[in-house]
């Protein structure tokens, strides 16, 4: 062959350069929750460790929260929006199928024309995005990637049901990932198990919503809807879960994946300064700490108590908080693991900024 294609100049390593988060104002207590479902403050605290969740009001959108967290992360990383050359938003609650939250966010931040896209991996979305950002930077396709985990779950729950809604909160967390002189993100351990597709899912599809609004005589719809709504069902699709199935998977399967992430990183539990698991349930966190035999010295993120489960936002929010409350973890190693609807999971060991 007479010509040879050029390929990008690669970077040896990547790392997290800065973090930022945004917590919306509305505080929902367990007593508030108990006005909507048959439960008690004691039951919720004991089974989940949740005391409050923060939720966004009607005037605060997914984009507003993402923008606030992103600006803080950029400032913390010491870079400007123009320096971003990729923006990835992990979310399942942006209310438009298309265009993406990421392209709107990129324009708001002043980072246009950076490539921008959303990913749908629920509570593992942030770890999936970190896997991609790490690969993009090392491959030389990007120098500064903004990764945002953001959710307004309050738009997709039914406060009167008891399987999942009482656990969930809203918020945003962001990190900037760029080239590094030292290894800062270990090989990602990530995967999925679609055999448990229904373990955490929506009550029905948007097509069933459309049918219930427009009526089934609309001929365009005939072939589209596989399962029409029950007569009195709320037409707006909301989240449900099989808590026991998810709990068992989240603790015992995820402990295996967390150990695998440590192994792939070439470190032992003793080498960690911090453990930042997805904030799903305090009992899951406690059990994982036990399974992984983490030494007392490891700082464990327990943001769930005040913030509830914020899906894709939970790890970067908890990381940002930990860096403020425990500055001693800076420059040290943290194990992060996300897991949720899909089912999907992702884990890495990261060097904390």
């Amino acid at each position, binding site marked *: 062959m007479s010509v040879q294609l050029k390929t990008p100049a690669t970077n040896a390593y990547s790392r997290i350069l800065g973090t930022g988060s945004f917590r919306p104002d509305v505080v929902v207590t367990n007593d508030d929750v108990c006005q909507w479902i048959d439960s008690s403050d004691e039951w919720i605290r004991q*089974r989940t460790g949740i005391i409050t969740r923060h939720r966004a009001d009607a005037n605060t959108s997914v984009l507003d929260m993402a923008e606030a967290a992103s600006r803080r992360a950029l400032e913390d990383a010491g870079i400007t929006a123009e320096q971003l050359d990729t923006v990835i938003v992990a979310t399942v609650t942006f209310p438009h199928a298309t265009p993406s939250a990421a392209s709107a966010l990129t324009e708001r931040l002043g980072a246009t024309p950076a490539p921008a896209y959303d990913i749908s991996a629920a509570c593992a979305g942030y770890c999936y995005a970190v896997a991609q950002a790490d690969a993009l930077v090392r491959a030389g396709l990007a120098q500064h990637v903004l990764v945002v985990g953001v959710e307004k779950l309050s738009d997709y729950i039914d406060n009167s049901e008891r399987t999942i809604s009482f656990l969930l909160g809203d918020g945003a967390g962001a990190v900037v990932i760029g080239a590094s002189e030292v290894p800062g993100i270990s090989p990602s351990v990530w995967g999925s198990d679609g055999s448990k597709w229904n373990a955490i899912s929506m009550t029905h599809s948007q097509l069933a919503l459309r049918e219930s609004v427009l009526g089934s005589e609309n001929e365009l719809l005939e072939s589209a809807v596989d399962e029409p709504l029950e007569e009195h069902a709320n037409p707006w699709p909301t989240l449900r879960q*099989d808590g*026991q*199935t998810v*709990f*068992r998977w989240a*603790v*015992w399967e995820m402990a295996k994946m967390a150990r695998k992430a440590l192994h792939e990183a070439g470190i032992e539990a003793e080498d960690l300064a911090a453990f930042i698991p997805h904030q799903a349930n305090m*009992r899951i966190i406690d*059990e994982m700490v036990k399974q992984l035999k983490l030494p007392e010295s490891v700082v464990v993120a327990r943001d769930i108590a005040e913030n509830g489960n914020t899906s894709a936002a939970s790890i970067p929010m908890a990381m940002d908080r930990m860096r403020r409350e425990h500055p001693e973890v800076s420059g040290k190693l943290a194990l992060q693991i996300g897991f949720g609807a899909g089912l999907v999971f992702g884990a890495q060991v990261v060097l904390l900024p």
Partner: protein
Amino acid sequence: MASNEEILAGLAEIVNAETGLDVADVQLDKSFTEDLDIDSISMMTIVVEAEDKFEVKIPDEEVKNLKTVGDAVSFIAAAQA
């Protein structure tokens, strides 16, 4: 394969590790929730640990039927057979 006495003793150790309850309190006629004050989440841990220890499968749907320590011992014994 373990005898019923061995299963009970093994189960008592698991309950002790999860809840701190004395192994002597874990008796066949005791209800997990009412007598031993074990909540549904601790119960999941106990079930998974028991699956591991006795090399049996205890499906999610079955857990609800294991009201007493005796129910669990019988289920495990039958599953091992």
